[in-house]
Every structure is written in structure tokens, then in C-alpha cells.
């Protein structure tokens, strides 16, 4: 039973850029319905690892298993088909398009009936309504219009849009690379609540964050990444937060 | 459906008469010169001339556009140097339907259809003239050697270029595929491309001793390359155009000969005919060939037997362009 609870598993992932080894034969394991946090120093290779899991980057070597079956993601589309949705650290938005268009990019809603099926007309009104609702839920209140272009948004507003997007479409796994980095106090709470509610709905969340107290509080498991690989997989409470930080920074040995 | 314009009937002064003059492009001094001459002639006749040009050689859509714009502006006659002898016809026919008289200069319209008169160079004849002369000059200079001919072409499919080259080869008495034609390059009639093409051909065949050039800029480029290779004496270079610059090149020995054409005649005769037609309704009479050949004259300072020519002094006095 333990084995098939694992939604996403990766073994021996390696990714090298030139002579920079970003991910060094790292393992990864995510269970169904859990919040797994990935913590580690800047440049440890966290983003590179999750880019491999989300299909954005093809690893040099290593295997990925989805519900126990080996898969090979050639593009983010492949991962999305498997229900894996990702908030990238640099957000991946199209600056020229408005908020609603970015939220629904690649999964636009068409009108029902002939207008949609024959004329393939977008139902912008519905998309805008839903987009507004998702953002409201996350506690973003300063947005003046859902038709603002993303290039005109504040840093935090932009991040909220990316988070909302992943939350809506990640039916299986939601990966978030530092989703609260630019967020204010209230908005951060909104996102953490959202993460919990995703978990409670039986989906799994991978959270990369430098906010150790929040991580310690919210996570079911913590993946400690250091110098390109997972050096420890812990359960909060088994170890004090300070010790965890010690392991992460290399001050303490992994065990 | 042609509606006679009332305003024309009211005044007797030629000043009310507007004529359109459309050349191939204005990227070549030949056409710019022809336009200037047309403008001068129009002034002399007291008519208003409006002018236009295609964007590049072959730009038929641009000329159709110009014809339409001129009809709108109320011209009574249009004189055109067509970029395509066939494709221009429907536009000219439509102009005639709207009561606008049409004439051609420099290049004939296919079958001289849809025009009341044409004044043009016989480009084939000019080519033949050049070919015959170069052949004779070659025989005279380099007795015993075989000719190695290089062609500085325009680019294929452009009527004038095809006619001149065919004429030259016929006049010389060789075919394009004969071994005597050792190299050919397209230059677009451009000086620097002519120079580069000639340099490359000389690398391939250092023995080239006869060069044909489609026009004088390309010829000038070719002559530069030949001079740089120290072969000016060994190569006969013939060109076609007859601009004052070309005549000067013959004079200073860069070209062996050039064939002169007469754009001023084309401009003056066509304007004159257009004004006559508008005023009196008389169409110019054309010879059985369907057009008036404004003539070609060989310009050289090296006479050969049996070929009539004019020397560069005459050439300098009768050339076109800035003297």
C-alpha cells in the first residue's frame, strides 16, 4: 500500500548546463494528498529539479514515475496532460495579454453552442468572471480591472495570477516555485490556505519556499535539497526547525 | 462608356491639357532623363505633364496603379514605358474606354495593341549591331585567337535584356550554348555587381577576351575588374545605352564601343503626338512594323571595315544624360 500512494517519483535525475551541474543525481518522492515542501539554499537546484518534473526541461539522465508507471515528459504540455500544473519562479506570463487571458492561456473557454463549436468564439465574459472570482479568493483586492495587461501589474499581483492559474488547472499535482515570494501578509495567508484546500481535496502540492516557519507549519514532508540533490526527506516535528535549517545549510550532517 | 470631359472643350489654351508620363522605374538615369525631356517638351507645348514610375523593373502593379491615379487626376493621354509588354494591356484598354489616349515609349506593347503609337529603340537591332562590330573588331585585333565571350546580363525574363543579349549573340554569330560563351552572370544592371561578377568570371576563365554588358553601369563595373586584372588591352568590351557617361568610357578606352539610343526623341515625339491627338483627334501614323524606331547608333573610336559608326566626338554631342 505504501508504494502506490506515491504519485510522482523521480530517481537519479541529473541536469547539467555547460559545466554547471544544476541537479546531481537527485531523487524525489511525492505522495497523494500531501504537501511536500522543497527547501534549500539559493542555487541548490530546486527550480531545476521541478522544471524536470513539470516537463519544462528534459533531464540528462534519470527516471520519472507517475503513479508507478515510468513516464517521459517532453514538454510542459505532457505534464499538464497528467494533471501536473506548475507555478514557475519567473511566473511565465505573456506581458502583452490581460489577466484573464493569461489565466486561461492554453485552456481558453469557448461559448456553448454554435458560437463556440462552429465560430470557436471565446467566452471572454465567463473567463473574466471566473478569473475575478479566483483572484478575490486569494485576497487580492487592489486589482482595478481584470482586463489590465499583465505587464502593468505589481509584482505581487502578477504572482497571484500565476498561483490562481495553477490552482484552477492542477487536477493531480500542483507545483509552486516560491509562490509567496512577492506576496503581502494577507495574500500569503490566502495562498497557504489555498494550498491546504488543494491538499484537502486529495490533490498533492509541491511547495518550494524559503519561508521556513510556514513550511514547517504547513508541510506533510520536507525535501531538503543541497548542492543539486536531495540530502534528506523529513517529517516536521521529527526534527526541530533549527536543526532542519542546519541540515539545509550544511551546518549539520543530514543524519 | 467614355464620358467626354466638358472642361476640355471650353478653353483653347493647351494649359488645360494634362498628360501622364509613366516610366519603368526611376532607379536608372535613362528614365529620369526621358522624364526630364518629356517635361521640357510639355512646357514647350504648353501642356501639363504629370509623371510616375514603377518601383522596380517588372513592377506592373505599380504602373497600373499609376495609370489609375492619372486617370483620376484627369489626364487626357497617358504615355507609358511598360514594365511588362503583355500585362500592361488591360490597364491601357481600360484607360481608352474612359476616353484617355494611350501611347508607348522605349518598350513596345505586345502587338502594339491598346496604344495609338510607339516610339522605341529596337533593342534586338542594337544588340546585333554591337555583336557584329565586336566580332569584326575581334577578327581585326586578335587574328588566330578563339573568342572567349563573357556576358554581363541583366536578369532573365526582362524583355529588354533578353532582346539585347540575343541580338548581340546573333550579331556575333554564336549561340548561348556554344563553347565560345565561356561565362555569364546576372548583374541587375548594377555597377558593383558587374564588377564582382567580372572578377569572379576572370578567376574562372582568365582568357576572357570579349565582354558583352547589358548596360553601361554593369559595363563600367566589368571594365574596372578588367583594368584591375591588367587586361584592358586584351579585352573587347561592348555595351548598350549611349549615355554621356558611356560615351566618355568609350573615349577613355574602358569600353570598346557602345550602342546609343535616343530617349529624348522618344519623349519629344510621343508628347507631340499626344498633344496633337488631344487637340485634333489625329492618331500618329505608324510604319508597318507598328512602331517608330528611334534608332541605334554605334559609338566607337576604333573603326572596322563595313560597319558604320560615329566617333566619340559625335557621341558626346548627341548623348543623353548630363553632358
Amino acid at each position, binding site marked *: 500500500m505504501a508504494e502506490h500512494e506515491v504519485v510522482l517519483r523521480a530517481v537519479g535525475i541529473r541536469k547539467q548546463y555547460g559545466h554547471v551541474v544544476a541537479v546531481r543525481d537527485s531523487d524525489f518522492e511525492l505522495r497523494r494528498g500531501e504537501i511536500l515542501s522543497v527547501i534549500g539554499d539559493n542555487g541548490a537546484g530546486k527550480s531545476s529539479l521541478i522544471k524536470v518534473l513539470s516537463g519544462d526541461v528534459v533531464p540528462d539522465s534519470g527516471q520519472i514515475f507517475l503513479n508507478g508507471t515510468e513516464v517521459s515528459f517532453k514538454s510542459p504540455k505532457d505534464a499538464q496532460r497528467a494533471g501536473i500544473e506548475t507555478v514557475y519562479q519567473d511566473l511565465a506570463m505573456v506581458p502583452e495579454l490581460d489577466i484573464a487571458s493569461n489565466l486561461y492561456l492554453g485552456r*481558453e473557454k469557448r461559448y456553448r453552442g454554435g458560437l463556440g463549436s462552429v465560430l470557436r468564439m471565446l467566452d471572454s465574459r465567463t473567463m473574466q468572471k471566473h478569473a475575478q472570482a479566483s483572484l478575490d479568493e486569494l485576497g487580492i483586492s487592489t486589482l482595478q480591472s481584470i482586463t489590465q495587461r499583465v505587464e502593468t501589474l505589481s509584482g505581487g499581483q502578477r504572482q497571484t495570477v500565476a498561483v490562481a*492559474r495553477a490552482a484552477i488547472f492542477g487536477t493531480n499535482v500542483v507545483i509552486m516555485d516560491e509562490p509567496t515570494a512577492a506576496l503581502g501578509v494577507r495574500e500569503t495567508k490566502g495562498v497557504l490556505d489555498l494550498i491546504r484546500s488543494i491538499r484537502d481535496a486529495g490533490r498533492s502540492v509541491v511547495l518550494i519556499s524559503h519561508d521556513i516557519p510556514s513550511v514547517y507549519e504547513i508541510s506533510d514532508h520536507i525535501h531538503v535539497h543541497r548542492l543539486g540533490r536531495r540530502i534528506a526527506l523529513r517529517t516536521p516535528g521529527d526534527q526541530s526547525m533549527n536543526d532542519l535549517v542546519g541540515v539545509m545549510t550544511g551546518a549539520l550532517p543530514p543524519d | 462608356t467614355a464620358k467626354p470631359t466638358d472642361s476640355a472643350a471650353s478653353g483653347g489654351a493647351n494649359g488645360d491639357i494634362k498628360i501622364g508620363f509613366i516610366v519603368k522605374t526611376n532607379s536608372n538615369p535613362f528614365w529620369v532623363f526621358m522624364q526630364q525631356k518629356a517635361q521640357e517638351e510639355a512646357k514647350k507645348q504648353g501642356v501639363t505633364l504629370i509623371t510616375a514610375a514603377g518601383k522596380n523593373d517588372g513592377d506592373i502593379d505599380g504602373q497600373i496603379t499609376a495609370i489609375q491615379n492619372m486617370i483620376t487626376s484627369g489626364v487626357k493621354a497617358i504615355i507609358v514605358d511598360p514594365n511588362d509588354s503583355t500585362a500592361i494591356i488591360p490597364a491601357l484598354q481600360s484607360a481608352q474606354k474612359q476616353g484617355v489616349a494611350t501611347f508607348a515609349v522605349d518598350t513596345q506593347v505586345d502587338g502594339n495593341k491598346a496604344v495609338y503609337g510607339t516610339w522605341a529603340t529596337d533593342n534586338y537591332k542594337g544588340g546585333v549591331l554591337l555583336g557584329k562590330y565586336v566580332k569584326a573588331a575581334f577578327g581585326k585585333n586578335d587574328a588566330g585567337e578563339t573568342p572567349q565571350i563573357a556576358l554581363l546580363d541583366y536578369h532573365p525574363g526582362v524583355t529588354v535584356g533578353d532582346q539585347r543579349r540575343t541580338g548581340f549573340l546573333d550579331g556575333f554569330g554564336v549561340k548561348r550554348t556554344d563553347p565560345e560563351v565561356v561565362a555569364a552572370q546576372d548583374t541587375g544592371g548594377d555597377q558593383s555587381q558587374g564588377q564582382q561578377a567580372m572578377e569572379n568570371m576572370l578567376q574562372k576563365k582568365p582568357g576572357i577576351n570579349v565582354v558583352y554588358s547589358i548596360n553601361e553601369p554593369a559595363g563600367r563595373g566589368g571594365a574596372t575588374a578588367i583594368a584591375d586584372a591588367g587586361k584592358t588591352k586584351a579585352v573587347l568590351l561592348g555595351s548598350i545605352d549611349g549615355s554621356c557617361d558611356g560615351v566618355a568610357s568609350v573615349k577613355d578606352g574602358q569600353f570598346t564601343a557602345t550602342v546609343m539610343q535616343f530617349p529624348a526623341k522618344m519623349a519629344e515625339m510621343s508628347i507631340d503626338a499626344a498633344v496633337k491627338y488631344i487637340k485634333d483627334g489625329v492618331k500618329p501614323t505608324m510604319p508597318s512594323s507598328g512602331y517608330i524606331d528611334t534608332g541605334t547608333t554605334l559609338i566607337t573610336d576604333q573603326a572596322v571595315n563595313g560597319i558604320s559608326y560615329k566617333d566619340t566626338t559625335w557621341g558626346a554631342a548627341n548623348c543623353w544624360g548630363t553632358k
Partner: protein
Amino acid sequence: MKVLALAARNPFFGPLAALLVLIVLFSVTTSTFFSAQNFSVILQQSVVIGTLALGQTLIILTAGIDLANGAILVVGALVMAQLAQGQPPAAQFGILLVGFLVCGGLALVSGVLVARFALPAFIVTLGMYTMLTAGARLYSQQTLVVPDGPLTVLGTGGYLFGVFQITIGVFVVIASVIVLHYVLTRTAWGRHVYAVGGNPTAARRTGINVRRVLLVVYLVAGLLYALGAWQAFGRSPATSANVFGTANLDTISAVVIGGTSLFGGRGTVIGSYFGTLIVLVLQSGLTQMGLDPLYQQVLTGALVIAAVALDQFTRRVERLA
């Protein structure tokens, strides 16, 4: 203020303003410019470059560029004209189909090189242009005239309101602009085109198949070039390898004058059509003024810059400092 807000929402407002300014200018300075007949002629002049400019806009929106559009049109037109020689009008339906296949296929070759091998569009289409221009001349050095029939039907027309002469081709180009505007602004695919041009990485990460979008863009552009060839038969049933030699730069100009960014992701097809009209109005107006072609050319250069400056002004772009 209201006007500026409208302009920000509709980026083709600037080019439209420039167009109107020019029309007023020429209507005042010449007696012949402002007439139903002249406007109808200008519209007819717009059909070929206007159609090509639509394909060019699509490609430029994806941060590409097409230097081969005129050459593709020419090859398509030559093939169609050759096939139509001595054939009855009815056969021209099939011939048209061939033309669309040829142009679509050629543009798709560029598309594959750009999308699949990530080669710069400038070089790919420059190479295609070089090859196809020579290829067209190898294929036919004659001027070919197509017999009347479906191939030339776009040039036929009648009168609107009794005074405004109009051809089917004008309707077709305007309809194409509207359809393409709809597709770009009201369908998912259109949004993906903007996304691919604006931020290809983001587009890819949101699951858009960037390669496929690019391929379809080049294919659709190719079909528009075939439509352009058809329109060209309406303008003149005679075609040769030497026509539309400057269509590439002409369409890029129309697109840029129409407010589309060469860096991708921003622009409209309506703007491009206005850009086409701006150039034609300039030519027509300057001809009516009776200026010499060389002086016309000088003024054209200046006015094109002025038109774009006016566009920038209406958009009040933030300036570099």
C-alpha cells in the same frame, strides 16, 4: 482623454488617424483626390498588398518576418497561369486549389525551418526568396495571360450607391481583414499567436504547442499569399516572374506603419490594412499633386515617418530617457 483611452484599447486607431489626416490633406491640396471614383480606385489598388500584408502580420506577430511572400505569390500565380493555358473556365476551380496548395506548401517549408529547426525567420525567408525568385524565372520566362473565368473574377465588379465602383476583390480583402481580426482577437488560436510572439517560453509553459502554432501561422500566411495571387489576377490577368519584386518590404512597411511591433506579440491586422492604404493614398495624392516621381519619393519617405510619429503620439508611448 476619451480619445486616448479608445486609442489604447484599439491600437489601429493611430494608423487610422494618420490615414484620415492624409486624406484631408490631399482633399484640400488637390481638386481631384476627393472623389468616390478615386477612393474606389485606391481600394482596388489595395487588394494584393493588403492581402499579403495580412499574412505578413500573422508572421510578424510571432516575432518572425517573411521576405519571401512576394516570391511565393509569383510562383503560385505562374503555376496557376500555366495550368490555365488553353483550359476552359470550369477547370480554373481545380487550378485555384492547386495554387492554394503550392503557396501554402512553400510557406510551410519556411514554417518548418523556423519552428522545427529554430532558424531565424529573416534568413530562412531570405533564402526562400532567393530560391523562389530564381525558381520562378526558371519555371517561366514568359508573361502568361489567364483566360477569363474564376481566376479573374475578383477583378469584376459593379457600382455601389450608383457612384462607388467596386470589385469583388475589394469585398474579399475587407472580408479577409475582418475574419482574421476575429480569429486573432476572439479565438483561442489567435491568443496563442500573440502569446508565442510575446513570450514563447511562457507560451510553452502554459502548454501551448509553440511549434504547431508557428507551423499553422506560416501555412495560413501561405494560403493568404495564394489569395493574393488570385487577387493579382483580378488586377491584371497577365503574370510573369518579375512582378511584386518589392512586396516583401512593401508589406513589412504596411505592417509596421499599421502599428505592429517587429518584436512580436503586439499588433492588429486592421492596422496593417490601414498601413497599406496609407501608402496608396500617399502615392495617389502625390500623383494628383503632379509632383515629379523623385520629389514624390522624397515626400513619401518623410510622410511615412510622419505617419508613424503620429501613431506613436496618439499612443503616448513612454519614451526612453
